[in-house]
């Protein structure tokens, strides 16, 4: 039997299968919270994650989900949380932004540039800066009359 290749691209492909616990349609890769994914010369897999917000309660859950997913490589796995660079909403990939929109969340944009994720109208109003999670605000669409959530630009 040939041992599977364990390199950074294999590890990243596996991380593409770990989803945000609060928005299960978007992977942590598309969310941009994987800062570093390395296979060391000692064979160990080391991952650094960036929390979207310092007080994000999901980060521990994500950390353990990453750890679980990478166990299949049969290598030591070390998952750390880092502030070495700040997570910003620009780190969400184009694919990630599209997935957010399809799930009913407006992707991060300046308050004047937010569009309704359902009907794409620009006639929207912010109801509250703060929403059900730290990373989201509450909006209302004046055209299709739907309340929706938008990711905060940060």
């Amino acid at each position, binding site marked *: 039997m040939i041992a599977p290749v364990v390199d950074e691209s294999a590890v990243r492909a596996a991380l593409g299968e770990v989803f945000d616990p609060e928005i299960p349609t978007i992977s942590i890769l598309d969310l941009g919270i994987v800062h570093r994914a390395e296979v060391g010369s000692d064979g160990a897999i080391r991952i650094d994650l960036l929390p979207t*917000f*310092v*007080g*994000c*309660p999901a980060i521990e859950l994500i950390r353990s989900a990453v750890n679980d997913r990478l166990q299949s490589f049969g290598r030591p796995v070390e998952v750390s949380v880092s*502030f*070495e*660079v*700040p*997570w*910003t909403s620009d780190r969400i990939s184009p694919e990630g932004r599209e997935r957010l929109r399809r799930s009913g969340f407006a992707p991060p944009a300046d308050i004047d540039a937010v569009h309704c994720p359902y009907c794409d109208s620009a006639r929207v109003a912010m*109801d*509250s*800066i*703060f*929403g*059900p999670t*730290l990373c989201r605000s*509450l909006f209302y669409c004046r055209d299709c009359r739907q309340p929706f959530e938008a990711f*905060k630009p*940060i």
Partner: protein
Amino acid sequence: MTTTRSALSASIDPAAEAVLDELILSMADDEFVIGFSDSEWTGIAPILEEDIAMSSLAQDELGHARALYELLAELRGAGQTADAIAYDREPADYRHARLLDHGRGDWAMTIARRYLYDTADGSRLEGLAKSSFAPLRELVDKIRREERYHVMHATTWLERLARHPGEPRDRLIASLEELAPDAATVFTPLDGEALLVETGLIAESMAALEARWRATITPLFVGLDLPMPPPGDLDGGRTTHGEPFRWLWGEFTSVRRSDPGAIW
């Protein structure tokens, strides 16, 4: 002081370590105490949006406090933990600013306190944006992006209350007057802070940061015809805590004290 230095502290001028410890502790305690006070609005804020806002602000501040306590635990080394620093001290050993010691009060008091604290904290964070201590600089960079939303929230409400004659404005002014003597206590000088400035751990002295803070808030206070906090007595600004804090301490340590040493 420990005799064996932690891996993290090896990068710091040994003489500056104690005062850096004091700075991080004071920041963590500030965020912890205001975050816990904000959480008291969960379920009872004046409107649903503000219930969510105060709960989110509390969650942010407690998150900042936790990250700062974790950094401090790593700096101290030798088996220190964030939880032990946060919960296992007597009330007299907390180092938050006296500004945060006035009890929850009404909505106007909450807004007055949040505005004064958020703007003062903003000035302090600006002073740390280029800190020579990388882990603190990196954390501050992240925290500042979140605090921007806090200042927006507090400013919106300060303006709303100040511009509404009668009860809203009267209550706001009464709260600002009650907080005035303690407003600047966020900038209580730290023992040996000159060393922090010399080693580039912080850009300026607390007095210089206070001057920047006053310059930042003056235009809005003048525009709204609100009383600017006078120069305060900063003596004991982080060490004399009154009855409202003893009560709060009893609340936030109650779970911890009910089963000492329990692990979540």
